[in-house]
């Protein structure tokens, strides 16, 4: 009797300890979502996203920031694109606060992803378009966090592939310049300008950062 009792108690203790250890481990996973260039220091992972120029057929065009309805998010609008246009949007990602210079606390990998969609309400159709992202490294002065005047960035951009992982290191300031490029399809057969009334190109971009595995 005593033996059985002891056994039950032992199993009970084992169960409790296992439960606590698993909970403690899972509690360390953090997922967060925010928009804009804010960067907070703490025991969480952040990166800085900065919007830049918008081009149509290599000409700089105006992008207007508008508020998304029923949301505190904003997005970029522009107009007067036409079939066959090349649309290109530049942005920057860094692993430090551009205003204060404070660093993130973790090594991380970064990967941007983009999709594009042509919506034609008159024809009641939508079409997927190819959106390709390219990047280059902007060499920085580590003290100021500004682009290094003595070390110009390469003029060549590399294409982001599915297995691309860009570093956001813990102990070094880095900045990447990206651009997402969409080539609009040529005009559909047997259509005229009336078929493109109200048509829009939507480019969605997702910026994913994951901290690297480290000891606890």
């Amino acid at each position, binding site marked *: 009797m005593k033996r059985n009792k002891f056994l039950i108690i032992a199993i009970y203790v084992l169960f409790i300890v296992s439960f606590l250890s698993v909970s403690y481990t899972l509690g360390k*996973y953090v997922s967060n*979502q925010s928009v804009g260039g804010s960067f907070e220091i703490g025991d969480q992972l952040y990166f800085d996203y900065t919007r830049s120029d918008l081009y149509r057929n290599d000409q700089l065009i105006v992008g207007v920031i508008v508020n998304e309805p029923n949301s505190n998010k904003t997005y970029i609008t522009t107009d007067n694109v036409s079939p066959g246009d090349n649309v290109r949007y530049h942005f920057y990602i860094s692993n430090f606060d551009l205003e204060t210079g404070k660093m993130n606390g973790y090594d991380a990998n970064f990967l941007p992803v983009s999709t594009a969609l042509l919506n034609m309400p008159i024809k009641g159709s939508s079409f997927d378009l190819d959106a390709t992202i390219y990047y280059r490294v902007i060499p920085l002065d580590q003290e100021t966090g500004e682009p290094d005047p003595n070390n110009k960035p390469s003029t060549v951009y590399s294409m982001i592939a599915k297995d691309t992982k860009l570093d956001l290191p813990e102990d070094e300031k880095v900045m990447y310049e990206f651009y997402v490029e969409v080539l609009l399809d040529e005009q559909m057969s047997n259509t005229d300008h009336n078929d493109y009334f109200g048509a829009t190109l939507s480019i969605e971009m997702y910026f994913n950062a994951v901290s690297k*595995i480290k000891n606890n």
Partner: protein
Amino acid sequence: MEDTKVIKSKTKKIVILNLALILLIAVQIIFLPTVARYVKQESDKIVASYTSLYMSSDGEGKVVSVEDKLGYLNLKLMNYEDSNVTQRDIEYTISRPTKFYNANGEAIADDDIETYLKTAGNQLHVLDVWNQPQVVGRDTYKYTQNIASSDGETKNGNYLFSYEKLNNSAVGKIHNLLIEFHRDRGSDFRGTEDVSIIVQLSRPYREVFIINVKISDKLIVFSNTDALVYETTFQRLYIQSADVYSYYKGSDKLREYKDRNDSSKTVKIAPRSLLVTFTWDNFYFDVNCLKDYHLPNDTLPGTYDNVSFIDISKPYVSKLDIEKKILVMYVPQGSNFYLDFLQIDKANSSTVNARVEVAVIDQSAKMDYDIYDELYAGYKYDTIVSDIKYMNLINYNKE
């Protein structure tokens, strides 16, 4: 005794086992690394709207006056409609159709076109940028069209309205073209022929604009169609007049005819407005059509006519008598306007008649108005109204 020993031994083993297990877990929690990852995602979006296209011309329904198979048309093309301006470059060409098609897109042999058009309901087509048949004027095949001059921008052989930003819109631009029509097919004509000018756009969209003009050896032409005005169907009478009355544009040859009173002498057409008298029956005449033109005092309540500011390029009203159903207008060169009539009694026919008089100068330099009939390559007048000869323009049948 031995049982007791066995029991104690087993108990010891269980205790040791459990303690080892607990120790193992403690070591794992405190000393061994755990997999901990932070994940963050942000997103952004760009929405780009497609451009709108606004393009217009002043050529629709214009009259080209021909002499000796040659005629010229002043045509304006604009990159705007009303206050809307296209905010991208527009590239276009004026195409010269050489092949014609039926409604199914099947080519019609040159020699078969006239036979094809004799069948009621058959229309002439050209193929657009998508190889789809588009209706054109049935006499288009008789004419060769060339651009004699243009002040439009060009790029790589195409005409171009280049985009220039202006505040939140763009600069509205006009291209002035002079198009030469040469009639090189078909028998001699007396009357009015329907010809189309095909404007092919390549940017920002690929499509065609078709401008329909009338080619005539007459100084003034009339046509009518149904028109919906505030959901009411009116009979709309279109009136277009030649750009130049006194001579043939292009050749500068004067319009000269035999003197009606002395066939050994000639008279010349004067560069004066034509005098046109309209009468109607079983129609209401919409006087609002005249609001943009010069009117004699008291013609319409609240209107006035200051002779110091007459715009001689616009038609002007000499007399309007609603009760007697008579309208007398001076129609200058290059006019393009319409008059609306609303049928009163739908059980009966409704008619509109016209009489055209042209200013002629005789050899003694005396100028007078004479009826514009066959003597001047004009019209036949075989309708009598109040003992005056008219020609019938509209005979709107009863329902």
